């Protein structure tokens, strides 16, 4: 096998290990899948009426945001996994094997693509239930989901890097929450850019600034 072939084989061995671990930890899986459903329901029905859009179109607007938010939070799983492997000596074990160095991270991020695909599916179903739907061609919808997965994959790498730097998975989860949570609120996820107050509304690119 070529070096690239070996690296891919190693990456898939690590990915397989990570996915097996996920199936043994149903608590984690359930938590991550229930959270987006909860967010969709909460924002659609609690804030839906208070937002300056019709309730139906707000739900449509919201679901796309929840998709994004969920995969961003999903990347915390990547980072925490890397941090856990660092802490418990798994990375040392891997590093003492004649495997591709890259496989620890490519395998980790690859298994999280599967994980993200799963949570996007659950969210799409939840979205359908509250009135969201695909209004474009199947191809465009697929491209949209593809972009979402790519975004999730990119974010997984960011968090994998952070996971290498922090001393424990707990530190990572807390730190990530502090950064990600406000970000999702100032982004035009829950509220349209135009409707955000003053500076918040101007701070993002692509949003026309009202004076």
């Amino acid at each position: 096998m070529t070096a690239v072939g070996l690296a891919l084989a190693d990456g898939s061995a690590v990915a397989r290990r990570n996915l097996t671990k996920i199936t043994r930890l149903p608590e984690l899986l359930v938590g991550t899948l229930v959270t987006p459903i909860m967010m969709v329901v909460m924002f659609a029905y609690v804030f839906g009426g208070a937002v300056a859009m019709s309730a139906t179109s707000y739900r449509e607007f919201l679901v796309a945001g929840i998709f994004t938010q969920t995969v961003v939070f999903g990347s915390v799983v990547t980072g925490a996994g890397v941090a856990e492997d660092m802490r418990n000596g798994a990375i040392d074990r891997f590093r003492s094997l004649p495997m591709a160095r890259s496989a620890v991270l490519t395998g980790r991020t690859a298994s999280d693509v599967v994980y993200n695909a799963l949570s996007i599916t659950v969210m799409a179903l939840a979205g359908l239930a509250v009135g969201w739907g695909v209004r474009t061609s199947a191809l465009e919808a697929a491209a949209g989901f593809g972009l979402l997965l790519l975004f999730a994959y990119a974010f997984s790498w960011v968090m994998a890097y952070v996971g290498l730097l922090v001393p424990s998975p707990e530190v990572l989860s807390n730190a990530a929450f502090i950064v990600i949570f406000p970000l999702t609120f100032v982004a035009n996820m829950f509220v349209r850019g135009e409707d955000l107050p003053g500076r918040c509304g101007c701070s993002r690119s692509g949003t026309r600034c009202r004076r």
Partner: protein
Amino acid sequence: MTTVTERAGPAAAELMIDASGVTKRYGDVLALDGLDLQVPRGSVLGVLGPNGAGKTTAVRVLTTLLEPDAGSVTVAGIDVRTYPGRVREVIGLSGQYAAVDEYLTGYENLDTIGRLYHLGRRRSQRRARALLERFVLTDAADRPVKTYSGGMRRRVDLAGALVAEPQVLFLDEPTTGLDPRSRAGMWDVIRELVDAGTTVLLTTQYLEEADRLADDIVVIDRGRTIAHGTADELKRQVGGDRVELVVASAADIPAARDALGRVSPGDVTAEDDGRRLSAAVDAGGVRVLDAALRRPTLEDVFMALTGHGAQTGTDTVDAAALVGVGGPAREMSL
């Protein structure tokens, strides 16, 4: 136990581990300060030292996990810095904290490692089953490691290090935290590996462990070798044979001192606790192997009472075997 002859000829026997002048610094801390280690093929080197002596750092350098700042290291004749990948193909590492995945089964843990050694699916699966059988883990093979006892985890971890039948095995404190029975089990396993020709470097805090397993022992402290030899040589270095008496009451000390003085050519020393006396032994060229009032050790009691699968009570035993910066007065117990 191997004798001096084998150790005296590193040129004669092929060195499977050869480290000289290894230095590693973490910020202000000099973790390794010109460490030298030589291990001939098929022998066991025990690296003994207190916590923070640099044992784990040394293992990490030898197993390519850390690059040394200075010095040269070869393992199985391969330079660790130039060809780390080739070194990894011939070594096995079992760490201080069993690096097994809790949520995977024992079998899955070993199979994953086999894949990463590129054994291929079939061979990797066969190897995993064979190792589980050898380490008496067949019944637990398909249970998550989370449900294993400490001793079972260590065995899986050691099995992981053996997946690719390494020529050189690194064991970083393989029995720390195990109860006496599991420890004895690990010793048997390691002994078997050595009999089959594996070269082993073993770090430990326990003198007894080094005594049982190692042909040769280096004692390190602050990243430097402070003593080197066989277990017997080290014991002699500590000041020769002494006889020690512990009396029931401090009032008996003068009479005991008198009695001990008649058999010893040297001074009789009293210890601080007021009930303990010791004196050098010189039986005119006769090598005294032992003179003691024998009672069962706590370990004997423990083993006899529990018979199997004991969980607690290790600390008292371990404390006695701990080796520190021992002076001549400190007995290195067997």
